[in-house]
């Protein structure tokens, strides 16, 4: 079971070599003449005002929450889908009830305007 992932392990090593080789070679040939103005934060020629790492709007958080709800649903549905051929007919009813509860969650979020981008 775990030996299936041996190839992925080998590939991770080679995949990380590609950017390392590319960046390393670029490091050898590229010019290096930094100065404070070059290294300042880009903002269309103006100096940037205030910090960037601030608290961000909560709207994104709501979408992330919705995502978690549906992603967990997907994780539960995948094994059901794989075994579906061997399952008796009530597996369909069970899944429909399960999906209906989640669809209800989507309808609720929709009615509450949680999905509106304002």
């Amino acid at each position, binding site marked *: *079971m775990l030996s*299936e*992932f*041996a*190839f*992925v392990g*080998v*590939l991770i090593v*080679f*995949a*990380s*070599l*590609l*950017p*390392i080789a*590319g*960046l390393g*070679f*670029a*490091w050898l040939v*590229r*010019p*290096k003449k*930094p100065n*404070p103005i*070059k*290294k*300042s*934060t*880009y*903002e*269309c020629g103006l100096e*940037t005002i205030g910090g*960037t*790492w601030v608290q*961000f709007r909560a709207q*994104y958080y709501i*979408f*992330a929450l*919705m*995502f978690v709800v*549906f*992603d967990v649903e*997907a994780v539960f549905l*995948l094994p059901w*889908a*794989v075994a*579906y*051929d061997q399952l008796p007919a009530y597996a*369909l009813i069970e*899944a*429909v009830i399960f*999906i209906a509860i*989640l669809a209800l969650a*989507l309808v609720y979020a*929709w009615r509450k305007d949680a*999905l*509106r*981008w*304002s």
Partner: protein
Amino acid sequence: MEATISWLTTLIPQLPVPTARLIVYVVYSAILAFAAPVVLVVAYTYMERKVLARLQDRIGPNRAGPLGILQGLADAVKMLTKEDITPAKADRIVFNLAPMLAVVAAVLVFAVLPVAPGVIGTDLKVGILYVVAIGGLGELAALMAGWSSNNKFALIGAFRTVAQLVSYEIPIVLAIITVVLASGSMQLGAIVAAQDVPFLFTLPVAFLIFFVASIAEIGRCPFDLLEAESEIVAGFHTEYSGMKFAMFFIGEYMHLFSAAGIATALFLGGWRGPGAGEASILGVLLGFVYFLAKTTLLVFVMMWVRGTLFRIRIDHLLDFGWKFLVPVALFLLVAVAFVLKVPVLNSPTFRWLGMLAANGVVILVSLALVVLAARHSRSAALRGVAGVDG
């Protein structure tokens, strides 16, 4: 893969099987991690420029080499010799790790891609789940880049990226579950083997949902507002230059290929086609040609879409994802599950026809609902205008 390993052990009898396996793995990994990205990026950037140019009634690159085919090489040399600037205020470690992660995440998807009969890095039992999981790494790279740049444009770009990718991952996963339901397996090899009729013809709605959401997932036009240059400069990679920028670029084009490749494996029958099979070298090569042709066709459609459509607004984007694609995908999943349990449809042909009928019903009902909703909101808006006037 297994055939190559046994061929190697018969060629050199004293070679132990684990060593032979390691050799094959290393060679195939090197091809996937070095040769494939270079060839793909050069070929697809050239193709994209030519296709876009033709769509816009231009000629496209024609200076570097005959017909401009060396343009990619010229770009590579230019990227290599550009100064690499790290902003003084950036978080250096995360800033440098992000482009590497973007490339690694894109390459890792190749591990489960069935590119030819019997040629697949590892046919994981949870293959398609692995693809979704690795897709999440790409989102992480974008967020890392945007956050560590300490630049407001980059941060806005990164947040948009995450909101968009997170929203479109749900329809993708639901479309995938529909395919898993019809094929009974999460292994990409088995899904390809199950497609005597490609799922494109039996589950067209699932294909459309998957394809549209994939375009959003790789952040291409019309869903490219994570790097909307008219609003937020270049989005999450605003502060990147030289080779680090090139890494994001490489990652993007490999992502393009892997998204099209997964769509090919799931819906277009992968490497399957007349004459393709594991039995002979010719069959394997033919399978590879079919796979590349189908994938490139999908890539071409994505370029065509980019040349035709305009960028959509973020509220429209999220509405389209959550209020259209997700409900349709859920509805489709239930409809297909229902058809597969109808006892009358016990022969494969009837099952395919049943699934096709379910798809037709789903798309007709959804479009009817959309038309009704549009009419309703339009008349509400008109009433609003009238109210203001009166």
